[in-house]
């Protein structure tokens, strides 16, 4: 029973962070209709920003959120404005050339970071990195619990933004029908850039929250891009609620897979779910939740 509960806790806490990563990718997916294959790499850049803040200025990783998120927002806007938007106008050989562009951007980010910081492993060790509290005999990592709380708060804020504000309505309008949105006077290009920026900022939040319990090197982006992709498909492409559900499902599946099947097959469990969803529930969790 202890093992079961501990697995459940580990899965939910990890799932909270996955949800944040997935929500960011989903937002970009919804508005841009492309899979952002540089998502994990953007998260990696945010983690390096957090590392620099902590290492050189002694800034706590949670406060570094206020630097890493705006920084990545700007990076996302810049990428959209100067690399992806021009591609929309070009007459292209392949309709997917924006996706190819994101792959390239991911590689450039990885190699630039490698050039600056080398391939060395880095980690941020705070007083609470290895701290844990116990409820009964179940251990809760302090850092992951705080991260889960902040992730919930950021997700709630995202919903408020999408549902209640003009900006959110514009984003949803562009996601639904670009031409109609443009006819209603929405500046579509600006909304695209904003959505890319928001998606990048969400990835940044996940990276910054993860750093105190994990570690960092330039190639860390790849595995997280893959996870974000699985979560987005799991959630039904473009559905924010679905992505949050998808994140939790993936976190739980990895944790239970690790405990009851074997940790060696952790990634396999995620990919099997991915295949199963594509085969039996092609619209993802969206179909279950109808949001």
């Amino acid at each position: 029973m202890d093992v079961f509960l501990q697995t459940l806790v580990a899965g939910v806490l990890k799932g909270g962070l996955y949800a944040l990563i997935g929500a960011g990718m989903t937002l970009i997916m919804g508005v841009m209709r492309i899979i952002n294959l540089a998502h994990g790499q953007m998260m990696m850049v945010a983690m390096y920003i957090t590392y620099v803040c902590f290492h050189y200025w002694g800034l706590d990783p949670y406060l570094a959120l206020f630097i890493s998120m705006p920084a990545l927002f700007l990076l996302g806007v810049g990428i959209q404005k100067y690399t992806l938007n021009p591609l929309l106008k070009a007459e292209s050989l392949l309709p997917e050339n924006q996706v190819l562009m994101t792959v390239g951007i991911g590689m450039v980010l990885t190699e630039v970071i490698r050039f600056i910081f080398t391939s060395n492993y880095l980690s941020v060790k705070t007083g609470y990195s290895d701290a844990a509290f116990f409820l009964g005999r179940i251990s809760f990592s302090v850092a992951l619990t705080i991260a889960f709380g902040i992730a919930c708060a950021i997700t709630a804020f995202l919903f408020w933004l999408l549902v209640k504000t003009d900006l959110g309505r514009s984003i949803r309008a562009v996601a639904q029908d670009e031409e109609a949105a443009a006819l209603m006077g929405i500046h579509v290009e600006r909304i695209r850039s904003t959505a890319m920026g928001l998606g990048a900022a969400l990835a940044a939040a996940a990276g910054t929250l993860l750093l105190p319990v994990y570690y960092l090197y330039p190639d860390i982006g790849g595995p997280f891009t893959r996870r974000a992709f699985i979560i987005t498909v799991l959630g039904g492409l473009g559905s924010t609620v679905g992505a949050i559900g998808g994140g939790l499902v993936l976190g739980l599946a990895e944790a239970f897979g690790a405990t009851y099947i074997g940790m060696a097959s952790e990634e396999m469990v995620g990919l099997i779910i991915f295949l199963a969803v594509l085969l039996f529930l092609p619209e993802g969790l969206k179909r279950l939740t109808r949001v």
Partner: protein
Amino acid sequence: MNKSPMLFRRKAFAVWSLFFAVAWGVVSCAPSGSDQSAKAETIRVGVVLPLTGEQAQFGEIEKDSFQMALEEINGAGGVNGKPIELLIEDDTGRPEVGRSAMEKLITQNKAIAIGGGYSSSVAFAIAGVAQQRQVPLVVNTGSDDKITEQNWDYVFRINPPASEYPAAVNSFLQEVVKPKTAALLYENTSFGQSSSKSFAEQAEKLGLQIVLKEGYESGAVDFKPLLTKVKAAQPDLVYMVSYLMDAALLIRQSRELGLAPKLFVGGGAGFTLPGFAANAGDAAQGVFSADLWVPSAPYPGAKEYFDKYAKTYGKNAEYHGAEAYSCLYVIADALKRAKDLTPAAVRQALAETDMKTAFGPVKFVSYDKKTQQNRLPTYLVQWQNGKLETVWPKEFASQPYIYPVP
């Protein structure tokens, strides 16, 4: 009417030429040693190492050590008056990239001997190419047992195979700790599987009961489900085969969960690197590890190598570096003795190697299923106050061991 196919063709042409331009750029950016116009007097020796990707940190230590050995050898007159030219290729940690690096070194650069081979899977892949192309390869790190169990006469290995890593650990357990139960965690790679399998076999001989044996995928965020199971099994000993950051996370999360066996033992690799203590922090205190080489080892040049490396690069070397450093000495020694400078003659000379290096005496012998394998003793080290101390066998100890671990 035929405008659009024309346009399409021109675009396709543009895309393809861009593709080739990039591909060509990548090739020509490769280490400049591949310059065909290099002087004919040099002797070309290839090296395959992971210089980018997840294992780049190890590759860097080995590359620096190869360079150090190269300068020393060439400074002392090279091989019978001819300097060695080192051609270092990046395998990025992937077997298929390693294979093409080998092909390039052999066909394009005409290397007559090759060293390197960091990860077991890459080392195995490039050993296959060496055998097929009949160019001698001296493996210096890849430790999966099967690499020297194929009867490949062009493949030599100076480091002990993974199954022999825990030799010193076992004698320490037998004489000092006498544990009853053990849990075994290993990364699911050929190195991890090979080491853990042999540890399990040897543990049985010691009367040690393996209560849990599980692999994991390298790079996991959260080991707690796995460690919870270990905690429930309450073993006396936890033996782990992991690379650097998995090792640091495993130890940190074990402490977090309150997992407290009598001792933690690492099976080399990540547990002996300076980065382990840096990333695991206080959690590293008291952790034991198998080790293949220590600066206090009784080999001529071991201490000198360690000091010189520390002075040149400002960080501490460990066994990977010593392996690489000695690898080039072994190759240079064979080149000196070879009848002529052909791969076949160098292979013959390598087979007759009998020399002392900073990594230990090197002589390629055949035993059990293995061929052309060097045999060396191993050591047990322990992290004490942020420093890696040799604690076993006693005659080489730099500090007494701390056990029971407080």
